[in-house]
Every structure is written in C-alpha cells, then in structure tokens.
C-alpha cells in the first residue's frame, strides 16, 4: 500500500525537469517535498497525481498503474490540491467543496448520503461550515485556501497531494494548515506536500524529499535531509539552528555563493 514512483523522467519544452526520480508515499505519513524554485517539485506532484505522463518511469498506486485503475478510480484514490485557487464562477462554498465528490458520483446521479457526509466532514475539519453560503471571491485569502483544502478532502482519497498549500498565508494560517494536514494523515491518508518553509517542513513532516534540478538529492528524516552541507549546496544558504521544547528548528540566515554546480539536470 503506497504510491511508488520509479525512474521518473520528464522534459518540458526540451528542458529536463525530472531525472530518474524515485519516491514512495505511505499511508498515514506526511511527506514534505522541498527544493529550490524550479527544482521539479510541482512536476513531480503532477506526475504522482496522474496529470502529467512521464517520459520514462512508472507510478504505481497500491500496485496498479493509472491506466489499470482508470481515470475515475484514480481520482477517487488520489486527491490533488492545486497551487492556484481561483474559481471561474461564483459558486457557493458548499457547492465548491461538493465538487470533490464528482469522482464518486455516477453520471447524472444525485448526491448520496455518503457525499453529503463527506462534504460536511471536510467542511468541519477545515472550519468553514459557517461560510457554506458565501462565494470564494468574498472570502479572505486564508478562508479561501481552507475552502479549497476542504474540496480536496471531500474526495475522501487515500492520498492527498498538495502543491504549496502555504503560499500566501500568514504564519497563523500556515501553522493551522499544517496541523490540519497532520490530522488528515493521522486518519490514515498519505499526504505529500510541497513546501518552501524549511523550518515548518522540518517540524511537521515525517519525511522529507529534497530535490534539486530534477534530481533526488536526499530522502529521509527531516534532520538528516536538511544538513548544513545540503542546504548550502542546494539552496545556497547558511542557517541558524535552535531548539524549542526539544524540537529542533532552523532559520535560513544568509546566502552563500557556492551554490551547487555539481549536479547537472540531465
């Protein structure tokens, strides 16, 4: 039981974005995907979600390929939370969250009891029950992101793939979102999340996957992955480290010039 990706290679517009990336996402864990801008994090997530077919390599969902599962079954198993979160039409919050149930509904089937329960659960978990009749455009950024997260949770999938769910959120909302993802994982869902805040990634993720220029640099416990050498090499920063209640944290402090030239994408 896991999403297992092996030897994923993707080139977009003639540029090699991912090279022989391997990874696995287990149920019940929060896997943080970290790396500098352009490292291939989003591309990897899109491959995992079945939105992008890799040039090489395979992704297996609990042993089956996306083709064997079929689109709808895959959509029920893997929920994807896109980074940009705008709704074209001013649908009510409740209707938006309900879109997450579409993979479960037979064509032209009405909402079932299970659909209603899943929507209510997702809205309760994201604390947006009071916003049910509002539209996305009238909400604050933080509320809007909660609605979109609830939409992804309403799918009731075994795996949740979230692309930068913290982008544009204030510190309070960032912490809240990560706590929510931990709650989701505690319910048995495998959560993969692309993060830029290394400190939060180290604190809230069970495991980190560090990628750089399309290559997997490290994969393991946050403390092992984010060592000084890797941070200097991959991000080009030096960090301050500290501890609070026995939990280590780090703070990017200064850029250093020796940004790794050792890894070439292809």
């Amino acid at each position: 039981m896991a999403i297992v990706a092996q030897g994923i290679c993707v080139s977009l517009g003639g540029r090699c974005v991912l090279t022989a990336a391997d990874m696995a996402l287990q149920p019940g864990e929060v896997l943080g995907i970290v790396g500098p801008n352009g490292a291939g994090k989003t591309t990897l997530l899109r491959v995992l979600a079945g939105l992008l077919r890799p040039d090489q390599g395979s992704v297996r969902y609990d042993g089956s390929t996306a083709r064997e599962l079929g689109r709808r079954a895959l959509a029920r198993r893997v929920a994807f939370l896109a980074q940009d979160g705008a709704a074209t039409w001013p649908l009510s919050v409740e209707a938006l969250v309900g879109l997450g149930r579409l993979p479960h509904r037979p064509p032209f089937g009405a909402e079932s009891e299970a659909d209603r329960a899943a929507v209510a659960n997702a809205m309760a978990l994201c604390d947006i029950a009071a916003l049910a009749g509002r539209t996305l455009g009238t909400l604050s950024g933080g509320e809007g992101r909660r609605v979109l997260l609830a939409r992804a949770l309403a799918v009731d999938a075994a795996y949740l793939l979230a692309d930068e769910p913290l982008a544009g959120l204030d510190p309070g909302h960032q912490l809240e979102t990560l706590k929510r993802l931990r709650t989701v994982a505690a319910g048995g869902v495998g959560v993969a999340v692309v993060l830029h805040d290394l400190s939060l990634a180290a604190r809230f993720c069970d495991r980190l996957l560090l990628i750089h220029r399309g290559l997997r640099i490290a994969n393991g416990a946050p403390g092992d992955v984010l060592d000084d050498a890797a941070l200097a090499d991959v991000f080009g920063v030096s960090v301050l480290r500290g501890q609070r209640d026995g939990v280590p944290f780090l703070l990017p402090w200064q850029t250093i010039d020796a940004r790794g030239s050792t890894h070439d994408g292809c």
Partner: protein
Amino acid sequence: MRQLPGAGVRPVVLMPVLGLATLAMAAASLALGYAALPLGQAFADAIAGRASLPALVLMELRLPRALLGALVGFSLGMAGAAMQGLMRNPLAEPGIVGISSAAALGAVTAFYSGLSATVALALPLGGIAGALLATLVLFVLLGPGASTMTLILAGVALNSFAGAATALALNLAPNPYAALEIVFWLMGSLADRSMSHVWLVLPLMLAGWLLMASTAPALDALSLGEETAASLGFDLTWLRARLIGGAALAVGSAVAVTGAIGFVGLVVPHLLRPLVGHRPGRLLVASGFGGAVLVLAADLGVRLAPVRPELKLGVVTALIGAPFLFGLVQRLRREAL
C-alpha cells in the same frame, strides 16, 4: 439539502418553470400572427386531415415557425452556456470556435451556386455541410491535447476565413438582387420555413444537446481550473471533443435553417446563471430553455411589430442584446471596484 443564499433556485422548481415558459411561448407563437387563426378549429381540421385554410396555416406556417424557434433557441442557449463553461469566460458564445460562420458560408455557397433554386433543402444542407467541415478542420488542426487557448485561436482563424469567403461570395454575386438575398438570409429569420426543415435539423440538434448535456459534471469541475478538473477524473481532450461536436451539431444546424441569430447564446446564460447557483453544468439545460423563450419572444415581436417588411430576427436579437452587453460591462466594472 438545505438551500443557501448563493445556491440559486432548486432545479426541481427551476426546470419545470423554464419548460412551462417555453411551452407558453410556443403556444403564443402558434396563436398569434398576421391573421387571426381559430386555433381550435385549425387543430381539429389538422388532426382530422381536412385541408382547410386554418389547418394549412397552422401546419404549414405557424407550427414549423414555433417549433424551429424553440429548437434553434434551445440550441443557441445551450451552446452558449457550454462554450462559456468550457472557455471559463463569460464572453464566449456559440460562434466562438467558428462553427456558425462556417455554417453560414456553407449556406451562402448553396445560394451562390444556384443549388438552392433547384434543390429543395439545399440551403440548410449546405449550412450543415459547412458546419461539419469546419468541425473536421478544427479537430484535425488541433489534434488531441490542444489547449483551450489554441481552440480559441483556431476559432478566430476559422471565423475570419469564413467571413472573408462569405464577403467574397457577395463581392462576386452575379447581380445585386442575389447579393441582397444573401445579405437578408444572413440576418436570420424564422419566416417561411417548413416542417421538412424541422425534420432535417431535429435529429442533429437532439444529438448535439445530448453531447453537450453529457459534459455537465465536467464543466462543474472545470470551475476550479483544468488541472483540478483533470484530477477529479475528467479527460479534458474528450470533454472538448464532445462540446465542440455537440455545439457544431446544434448550432450548425440552427444557422443552416435560420441564418445567423446573434446574442442569444451570449445573453441567456448570463441571465440564468444566478438562478442555477452559477453552476455551469446546471446552466446547460436552463440556458436551452431560456434561449428557446428568448427566440420565440423575439420572433413574436418581429411578427407583431408594426414594421413592414418584417424585421429580421437576428437584427432584433442583436438590438436587444447589445444594450444588455453594455449593462453587463457596467456590472462587471462595479464588481471590480
């Protein structure tokens, strides 16, 4: 489920109301016209097979006109909602991918070649051929995996080509009367159509409606963007193919029998969107009914207005539609503030 302010009118209420409104407008279209028609007697005679004058007026003039008004309006309204949903743009309309102008070109070609003078249904058949050819060109040009942006660009190209070719036909018209006839036909009208027109377009339109209606859940999902829609299990290439094919069948045959009737597909979805809680999927059928009501009403206006020669239907819908668009611009500006 309980109803919330933003959720619109319940579909179990809205759809029957819109359906009844369509029926009422169609009945009015049967009952009202240039001359008083004893409807009861006309129906009795028509059913009994007596070729009396009222029966002839009903079966040869009023009934095809009412039926075509409803069918064409439904097609335009639904295709407008479908295109706005697909393009995720409130300014999309049925003609955006170039099908309407291609259908018009096909009909004009039938005119120009003189076929329409000799073959009974040459005009609508030419229009349908034009629409199908354009759809084929779109699919071949785009291939699988084309984006919506490519689709719009291909539509712009197709539109300007068909427009230029139509202008060329006018330019080279053998005499001014032929040119005038083409221009008048292009303005759109429901007058002087027969039941054979109805039978010709009915199956094509039904197929088109079904194709478009089948995309309702996918259009809902598309509200959150193409990526999210795909992650919810919808194949976007297949979605575009169904929508373009459906719109081509419905709108292509509509244009083929009535000429160009603008603004219906643009305006109607806007009017009804709040009533369906802004859900693009539910909007499809609602807009179909709304389009039927609007076209039937405009056609009644054309008949009842004391202006002779009869105003062209496309002219009237555009005259109603343009001020509405200005209103929409005003509203969008206010919302942007």
